[in-house]
């Protein structure tokens, strides 16, 4: 059945639905009764014929067929019901697809159609509402963005005029006070002030802080810092840290051991910025793992905010291994060779990861004094740490380790360690390559192929 036919049938259903509910008398009109006693059968027969014709005219073929079949049973000899039965069967046969059968076989068409109309109307109304909601929301967002951009530029100009004027402009201060009355405006102004605090130093920055306090924005930040929601707290910490305001230090300290990673990091950042003299005291008491991400953030804060370097050496004795690792990384990055003695103690640390990093840092900082100790622990070390020891020796290029490396090359079972030892020998200035050539020309040893490999300039 094509689409038009389906539409026609749907329209027909709707029409019947309306007729059914609005004009029931059309269909259910009382049939003229006959007092004729000749035959009740005849009356029934007539009724059936009448109903059948009504259904037939409304195209309700299935119902019409039933009526004519009943009429035919009452009066089998009558021609008309038979004629209609044949006609209707033929019609039903022609429209035997799904929709047709539903339409024709459904005894209560009103329920189905009501449901369908309800679904269609509901979908249509929902779609229109959704469309209006999307359009309205988009328009609102776009307007808000434009407004924010406009206010941002206006406040930037106001702030710069205020900061770079020789004397305090009271009119501007009053304008700022009016700005802070609205939540959105205050938010934009705070963001601009923080941006400026990142850019400027000296007198201007000091004036900016005074303005922040004068506008009572510090109270606003403090309220945020003491808020209940973690993201609001984090925002408050950041604002206080950038504006160098200490009124919520206790809350920041409390959040240094928060279970929320982001809040903890913000508290650490604020702590470092606000207490340059005791920036890293939180590391002395931190019991949780100091994650790599936190370490990176702290490193970034030290580097980009010109924080004075703390004494990382004492952190090497921390019970929290992640802090020991952080201290070692900082010693490596900032080349703090003074920590040598404490690092030496770490060579006997219970955690192999700590020992490994210590060995690497010693090699990186060229701590030649550590070589005898590394040599001493080599045999008892894990495979990874043996590897790190040979690489550290290689980076220090110390001639005194030549025999030790030759021994590793000769006695070590692992080929990778042998290769590393050969590379380390090769790196020793002047003597290294000669020694390897001598080894190559000496009696047969199983490591000759390794030496040959290391000396091959095409590979190394």
């Amino acid at each position, binding site marked *: 059945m094509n689409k038009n036919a389906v539409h026609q049938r749907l329209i027909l259903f709707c029409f019947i639905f309306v007729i059914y509910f609005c004009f029931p008398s059309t269909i259910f009109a009382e049939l003229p009764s006959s007092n004729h006693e000749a035959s009740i059968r005849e009356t029934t027969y007539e009724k059936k014929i009448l109903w059948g014709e009504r259904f037939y005219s409304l195209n309700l073929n299935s119902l019409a067929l039933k009526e004519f079949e009943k009429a035919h049973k009452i009066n089998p000899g009558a021609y008309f019901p038979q004629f209609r039965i044949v006609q209707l069967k033929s019609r039903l046969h022609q429209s035997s697809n799904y929709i047709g059968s539903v339409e024709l076989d459904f005894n209560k068409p009103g329920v189905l159609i009501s449901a369908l109309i309800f679904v269609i109307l509901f979908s249509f109304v929902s779609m229109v509402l959704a469309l209006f909601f999307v359009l309205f929301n988009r328009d609102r967002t776009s307007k808000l963005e434009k407004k924010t951009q406009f206010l941002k530029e206006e406040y930037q100009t106001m702030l*710069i005029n205020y900061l770079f004027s020789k004397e305090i402009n009271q009119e501007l201060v009053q304008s700022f006070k009016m700005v802070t009355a609205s939540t959105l405006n205050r938010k934009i102004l705070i963001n*601009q002030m923080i941006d400026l605090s*990142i850019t*400027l130093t*000296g007198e*201007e920055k000091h004036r900016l802080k005074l303005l922040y306090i004068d506008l009572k924005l510090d109270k606003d930040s403090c309220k945020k810092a003491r808020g209940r929601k973690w993201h609001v707290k984090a925002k408050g910490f950041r604002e206080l840290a950038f504006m160098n305001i200490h009124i919520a230090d206790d809350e920041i300290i409390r959040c240094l051991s928060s279970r929320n990673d982001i809040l903890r990091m913000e508290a650490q950042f604020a702590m470092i910025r606000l207490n340059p003299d005791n920036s890293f005291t939180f590391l002395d008491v931190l019991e949780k793992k100091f994650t790599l991400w936190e370490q990176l953030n702290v490193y970034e804060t030290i*580097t*980009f905010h010109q924080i004075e370097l703390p004494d990382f050496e004492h952190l090497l004795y921390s019970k929290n291994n992640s802090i020991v690792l952080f201290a070692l990384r900082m010693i490596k990055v900032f080349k703090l060779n003074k920590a040598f003695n404490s690092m030496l103690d770490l060579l006997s640390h219970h955690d192999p990861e700590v020992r490994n990093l210590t060995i690497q840092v010693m090699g990186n900082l060229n701590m030649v004094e550590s070589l005898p100790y590394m040599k001493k622990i080599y045999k008892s070390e894990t495979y990874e740490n043996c590897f790190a020891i040979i690489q550290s020796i290689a980076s220090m290029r110390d001639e005194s380790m030549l025999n030790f490396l030759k021994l590793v090359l000769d006695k070590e079972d692992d080929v990778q360690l042998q290769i590393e030892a050969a590379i380390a020998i090769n790196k020793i200035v002047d003597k290294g390559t000669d020694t390897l050539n001598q080894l190559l020309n000496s009696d047969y040893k199983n490591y000759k192929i390794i030496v040959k490999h290391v000396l091959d300039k095409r590979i190394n």
Partner: protein
Amino acid sequence: MKILICEDDTMTLKALEHKLKKEGYDIITSQDGKSACDIISTQKDIDLLLTDLHMPKLSGLELINFVRGELKSNMPIIMLTRVGLEETVLHAFELGADDYVTKPFNPDELALRIKRLLIKNKQ
């Protein structure tokens, strides 16, 4: 004296513009490296270039390279950079930059550096 400031951050740009205008300089601004290149190519009377290192379209390093390499100009160039980018600063010096200022910067100090470089260049 005409100074071209090339900085993508609006706030910093405004602060620099305001400060240097107060010091009596003519200021031209640009928010990306490419437009700065166009300005330098067309306006030959620019006395000093103050540029950020990280900018859209064309970086500060590429801009310095353009000024020194292609335009063969010897106008003083001051870089604005973040702390901790020492290697980039060294690279910029290799390309021909004259001085650098780290963010956050002191506006008075920057004004003095500009003044010193302009006097030096005049001599």
